[in-house]
């Protein structure tokens, strides 16, 4: 009897696991794509003018509209932290942003990938790129509180990020950032980056920044595309195989390329580096590129032939290593993606 119960329980577990397992398609259609991004300045003015902050000077350019008196150009145009925070304010802004996106890109079904107060986004940005954290109104650099003394060293080392920190401190927390990416193609999400691996511009990502009254401060339209179906391809590479290939790729690149750096290379001179180390209590700082193993996902990515094909997307990031110990992970985590063909595992974007 006991054997039957155990057998039955095992069967149930197998069924349950199968239900939980990610279902992957076995075939996918490849597409030839045509990009569209050319929204002239006059068109931007015509479409966006009445949504911009009233009374504020607005600069219109190809696929951009922004209020330079309120925000620095380019703010929010890179993907920093893809997370969606639900709120009434976010929902109101989404309605406007999606109406405008549908107006200029009627063929595109955009997908919201990031929605949060702009200040939160910039904080992530400052943490990911410059290793600064803002906790209870105090700044921390690589985990060390930024005292007046450390501030002096950081200024000499050109690591003070004074403007970014000031911008965050003074920013109205009601400002909202929305980032859109092309919606899924045949059920698969679109790859994050352009074909060239070093080209860290998110693929067709559009950004909107609203003030607390749901007026637009910045609109940046990243583009859309139309697709022509091509051949059908088989998805032969499993997630486990892709991860193994990704590890091999990362190891090979690290062995042959210049993918890590000593922090003294970033300093104006050796004396500053010594002072920085002494102040934060380490004897060496190094950044190393590592594979973000959990980032693997099957997407439709653009290869170097301008075709959208099924591929495994992986991210790489930097780990900051102090005295041989990792003290910060995921630096620049949204910048470095590479793509492995889901058909044969070859690298398709390098």
């Amino acid at each position, binding site marked *: 009897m006991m054997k039957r119960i155990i057998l039955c329980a095992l069967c149930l577990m197998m069924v349950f696991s199968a239900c939980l397992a990610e279902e992957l398609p076995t075939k996918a259609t490849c597409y030839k*794509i*045509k*990009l*569209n*991004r*050319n*929204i*002239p300045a*006059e*068109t931007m003015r*015509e*479409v966006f003018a*009445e949504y911009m902050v009233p009374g504020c000077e607005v600069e219109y350019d*190809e696929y951009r509209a922004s209020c330079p008196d309120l925000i620095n150009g380019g703010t929010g145009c890179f993907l920093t932290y893809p997370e969606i925070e639900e709120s009434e304010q976010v929902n109101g802004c989404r309605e406007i942003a999606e*109406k*405008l996106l*549908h*107006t*200029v*890109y*009627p*063929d595109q079904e955009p997908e919201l990938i990031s929605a949060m107060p702009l200040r939160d986004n910039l904080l992530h940005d400052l943490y990911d790129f410059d290793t600064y954290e803002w906790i209870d109104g105090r700044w921390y650099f690589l985990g060390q509180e930024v005292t*007046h*003394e450390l*501030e*002096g*060293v950081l*200024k*000499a080392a050109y690591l003070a990020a004074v403007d970014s920190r000031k911008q965050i401190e003074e920013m109205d927390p009601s400002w909202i950032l929305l980032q859109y990416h092309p919606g899924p193609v045949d059920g698969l999400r679109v790859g994050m980056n*352009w*074909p*060239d691996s070093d*080209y860290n*511009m998110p693929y*067709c990502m559009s950004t909107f920044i609203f003030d607390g009254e749901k007026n637009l401060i910045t609109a940046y339209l990243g*583009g*859309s595309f*139309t697709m022509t179906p091509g051949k059908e391809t088989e998805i032969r590479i499993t997630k486990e195989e892709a991860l193994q290939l990704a590890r091999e790729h990362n190891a090979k690149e690290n062995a042959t390329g210049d993918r890590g750096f000593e922090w003294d290379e970033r300093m104006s*001179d050796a*004396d*500053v580096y010594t*002072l920085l180390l002494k102040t934060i209590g380490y004897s060496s700082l190094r950044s190393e590129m590592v594979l973000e193993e959990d980032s693997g996902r099957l997407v439709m990515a653009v290869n*170097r*032939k*301008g075709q959208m094909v099924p591929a495994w997307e992986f991210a790489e990031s930097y780990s900051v290593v102090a005295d041989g110990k990792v003290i910060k992970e995921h630096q620049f985590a949204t910048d470095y993606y590479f793509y492995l063909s889901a058909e044969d595992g070859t690298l398709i974007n390098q």
Partner: protein
Amino acid sequence: MTEQELRERLNRMTGEIPAETHRVFLSAACPGKEARIVKRKISAGLVFALVLILITVAAIAAGIVYDLKWWYGERTAETDPEFMRKMAENLVAEPEQQQTEDSLVDVKVREVSWMPDEGKLVVSIQATAKDPEHFELHSRLALDVDGAYDPDFEPDMYDEECEGHAEHWLWRENTDPEADERFRCGPVPQMMDDSSKRLLLFEGLQLAPLERPELFGYASMDELRTPEGEVLYLFEYSQDWMKQDYDRQMEEYIEEYPNMKEYAESQIAKAREARETLNSEGISCMLSYRVVEYIEGMDDTELYAGGTEGQVTFAIRTGK
């Protein structure tokens, strides 16, 4: 306003949206989008002769002297008369210099101007083929400017408007002021003045003090090829220590951050020493360059790192 109303407005202005223009790649990934291959419709020899005559006549008529005054006054349209005055005031033309033996090119430092009030140092250099009868000289930086060179390029890549190419392309400045585009470009042999000659590519690698190579920091660079076939480079350095009021700024920094006193004082001392050297015997510097002969289909490693390297040593000092 409804989405429909918005779209109607849009259509009135620009026609159906989206117009599939692919400009995204052309603006983001292919800066050389306006580039078009210049197709030869008449014989190369005749074109060469005509172009040479026209360019020579134009240059003589215009009386262009490619000096720093021209570089900042005409090419970059520097509008600050005070900057121009200081540059001229501190100018040293053709400082004493020594080039290592080189059978292919003559390289010389043409002009140097150190502007202490601006914290700027500008240096122009010139490379000339030793044997212009048989060699044509261009800048290595004029090769594949758009980044669209890809030895594995296949047609239909990205999209039909993105002009990727599997062969190297050379960029030329349009000397005709009436030309629509500032540059023209195309496969190397088609862009040479005389493709029967051998092509030399010159690259200015580094210009730095001999004793303290890090002193000047990184240069912003510009380069051009004159109608006479010389390749010119401009190196511009901006460093706080070069400024006259650097010491005062550092004193203020010390006041704000007393913990940095020792460091800041050592920086002041180094800056003073460098400025005094500039004002007296000058700072001995070395210009490193590389020359490689371009051969169609050559190995890219050889193209990017091969050839021969040479140096020119000279001293930078204030012109006052």
